[in-house]
C-alpha cells in the first residue's frame, strides 16, 4: 500500500522537495545577512541615544522582508491543502480509478489512512522545515524587536506551522472526498483555509488562555511610547501601548482612554487635544498632544498575556490544529467506509 501511495505522490514530492531546497538556500543566506547586520547594530549601540537609532535602522532593514516571508510561510499550508490534499481522493473519483483501487485486497479505510499518513507526514516535514529555517534566520531580529505575539510573526515561527500544515492537508482531503471533483475541491480548500487562518488568530487565539488585566496610567511619556491615537471611526482610543513592567507582553485588548472616575474621555476633549493642543514645545511622538492629554489624568485598562506564556500559546495552538486534523481524518475514514461511489 505504501508503494502505491508513494508511486502516486512522487512527482508532487519532488516538486515539494525542490521548493523547500530553494527556500532553504534563501533563508540560510538571509540568516547570515541578519546576523551580520545584528553585529553592526551591537557595535553601534555604545550609548542609549545611538542605540535607539541603530535599533530602528536594524529593524527597518529587515522588517518588510520578514513580514513578506511570514506571509509566504502562511501560504505553504494553504498550498499543500490545495495541491496535495484536495486532489488526493477527488482525482480518483473523477477518473473512476477508485473503482479499480478499492477492489484490491485493501480496505478503503486502510487505503485512505496510508495516504494520509505518508502525504500528511510530507506536509508536516516541508512546512516544519521551512518554519524552523525562518525561525533560525529571524532569531537576532526577533530578539531585538520582540514582536513574537504579532499575528503574522506568531504563526510563522517555531511549531505552530506544523499544526497548520496537518489541518490544511486533511481539510483538503476531506473536501475532495465530499465534493468529488478536483477543481472545486481545490478552490474551496484554498478559500476556506485562508479564511480560517484569519479567523483563528484574531478570534480564538487571544482567548485560548484567560488574560491578565492591568491599568496603565497615561502619562505624557506613556502616550509618546504608543503607536497611534484616535481611529477612523472617531473615539478616544490609543493603540500600541506597552506595559512598562512587561514590555514583551501581548496586549490582547485595550480600553478607550478613561478619566479618573472610569468614564471614557469625551471625544470633544480628545479632539481638542488632538487638533489644537496648548503650545508647550514638548518633544516626543505626539508632542503637545501628549502633554495636553496627560493633564486629563487618564488611564487605560488592558487585557494582556505576559511573554512567559509564549510557548504555552505555541503548544496549545499546535495541539488544537493537530486535533482538528485528527477529527477530520476520523470523519474521512468513517465517510469512505460508509458512503461512496
Amino acid at each position, binding site marked *: 500500500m505504501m508503494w502505491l501511495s508513494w508511486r*502516486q505522490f512522487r512527482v508532487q514530492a519532488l516538486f515539494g522537495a525542490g521548493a523547500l531546497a530553494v527556500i532553504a538556500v534563501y533563508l540560510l543566506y538571509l540568516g547570515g545577512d541578519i546576523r551580520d547586520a545584528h553585529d553592526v547594530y551591537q557595535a553601534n549601540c555604545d550609548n542609549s541615544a545611538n542605540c535607539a537609532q541603530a535599533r530602528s535602522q536594524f529593524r527597518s532593514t529587515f522588517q518588510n522582508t520578514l513580514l513578506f516571508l511570514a506571509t509566504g510561510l502562511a501560504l505553504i499550508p494553504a498550498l499543500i491543502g490545495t495541491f496535495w490534499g484536495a486532489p488526493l481522493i477527488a482525482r480518483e473519483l473523477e477518473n473512476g480509478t477508485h473503482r479499480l483501487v478499492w*477492489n484490491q485486497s485493501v480496505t478503503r479505510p486502510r487505503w485512505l489512512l496510508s495516504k494520509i499518513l505518508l502525504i500528511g507526514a510530507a506536509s508536516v516535514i516541508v512546512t516544519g522545515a521551512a518554519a524552523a529555517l525562518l525561525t533560525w534566520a529571524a532569531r537576532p531580529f526577533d530578539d531585538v524587536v520582540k514582536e513574537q505575539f504579532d499575528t503574522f510573526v506568531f504563526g510563522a515561527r517555531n511549531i505552530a506551522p506544523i499544526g497548520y500544515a496537518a489541518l490544511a492537508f486533511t481539510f483538503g482531503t476531506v473536501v475532495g472526498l465530499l465534493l468529488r471533483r478536483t477543481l472545486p475541491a481545490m478552490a474551496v480548500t484554498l478559500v476556506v483555509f485562508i479564511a480560517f487562518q484569519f479567523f483563528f488568530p484574531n478570534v480564538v487565539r487571544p482567548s485560548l488562555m484567560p488574560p491578565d488585566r492591568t491599568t496603565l496610567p497615561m502619562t505624557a511619556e506613556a502616550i509618546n511610547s504608543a503607536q497611534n491615537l484616535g481611529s477612523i471611526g472617531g473615539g478616544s482610543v490609543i493603540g500600541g501601548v506597552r506595559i512598562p513592567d512587561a514590555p514583551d507582553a501581548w496586549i490582547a485588548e485595550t480600553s478607550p482612554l478613561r478619566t479618573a472616575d472610569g468614564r471614557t474621555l469625551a471625544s470633544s476633549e480628545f479632539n481638542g487635544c488632538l487638533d489644537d493642543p496648548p503650545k508647550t514645545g514638548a518633544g516626543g511622538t505626539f508632542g503637545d498632544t501628549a502633554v495636553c492629554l496627560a493633564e486629563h489624568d487618564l488611564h487605560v485598562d488592558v487585557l494582556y498575556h505576559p511573554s512567559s506564556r509564549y510557548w504555552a500559546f505555541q503548544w496549545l495552538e499546535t495541539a488544537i490544529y493537530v486535533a482538528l486534523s485528527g477529527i477530520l481524518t476520523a470523519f474521512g475514514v468513517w465517510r469512505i467506509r460508509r458512503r461512496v461511489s
Partner: protein
Amino acid sequence: MPHADSPPVLHAEGLTKKYGRRGKLALSDVHLSVPAGRVIGLVGPNGAGKSTLLHLACGLTEPTSGSLTVLGSRPAANASHLARVGFVAQNTPVYGAFTVAEHLRFGAKMNPGWDPVLAERRISQVGLSAGQKAGQLSGGQRAQLALTIAAAKRPELLIFDEPAAALDPLARRGFLQNLMEFVLELGASAVLSSHLLGDVEQVCDYLIVLCDARVQVAGDTRELLAGHARLVAARGEFDQPRAGIEVISVEHSGKHSSAVVRTGAATEALPYRSEPVTLEELVLAYMTRAAAVPAARTEAAAWGATR
C-alpha cells in the same frame, strides 16, 4: 469449483437502492439467489440498475434497504473478502500515468494472493508490452489490462460491469474469449452485465433480466428456454388470462397473434401451435413487457404477488 453446500455467489433479499433522498429508485425490492460456479449474464437496457446491482455486490455502494450477501458475507466486509471478489468497472479504469508493468506491481502489492506467473503470461499473450503507459493503450488493450489485474488476484467471483461496451467487435471477441479462459483457469464464478444480449449469450449459463429497477426473470439458461415457448393462435386469443401459462408479450400480425409465454406444464396440452424460443426472443419479451409502462408494471406486480 461449485459445491452443493457452498453459499450462493449472490443472495439478495428485498434489495432496494435509491439515489438521494427523493431520487429515483435504481433497484426496487430485488430478490435473487445465484448458485456458485456459474457464469451469469446480467442483461437489461441502459439505466435498468445493472451497474447499481454490481456496485452493491462489490461494496462500492450500500443498499438503501434490504440485504445482499456475496459469497456468504457482506460485500467488501474486510480485506480477505475483498480478495475473493474481482471487479472490472465500466470503461475499465486504469491509472493513465502507470506503465503496464507498474499495474502488475500495483496488483502484487495490493493483493496477498497475487499470481505473478498468471498475470505476466496473460499480459504477453494479449500483446501488451511492460513499458507502455496505460494512458496510451487502446480501449481493448486497457480492458485486457484491467481484466488481468482483476483475475490475477485469483478471486472466487469475477464481476464485470459492461466490460465490452466500448470495444469494437474484434476487441470484444478477444476480450470475451480471454475472460472465459480466466474463468475456467481460476474455477471462478463470474457475473457480466451488458445492455446487449449478444455479448453475454455465448458465455453465460445463467441469466438475469433486469429492467426498470426490477428483476424480470432469472435462472439457468437451459431451464429458462425449456420453461418458455412461443405460441401462435388466432388474433385476440391471448387477451384473456389462461390457466397454466403466463403471457409475457404478444405480437399481432394479420389474423394471428404470437405470444411468448412462460409455461408451467408441457405445451403439447395446449390447443396452440408451440415453438421453442431463442434466448434473444425471451429477453426481448421481458424487456418489452417492462417497457410498456405503466400497465405492464402493475401486471408484473400482480403476477409477482400471486406467484
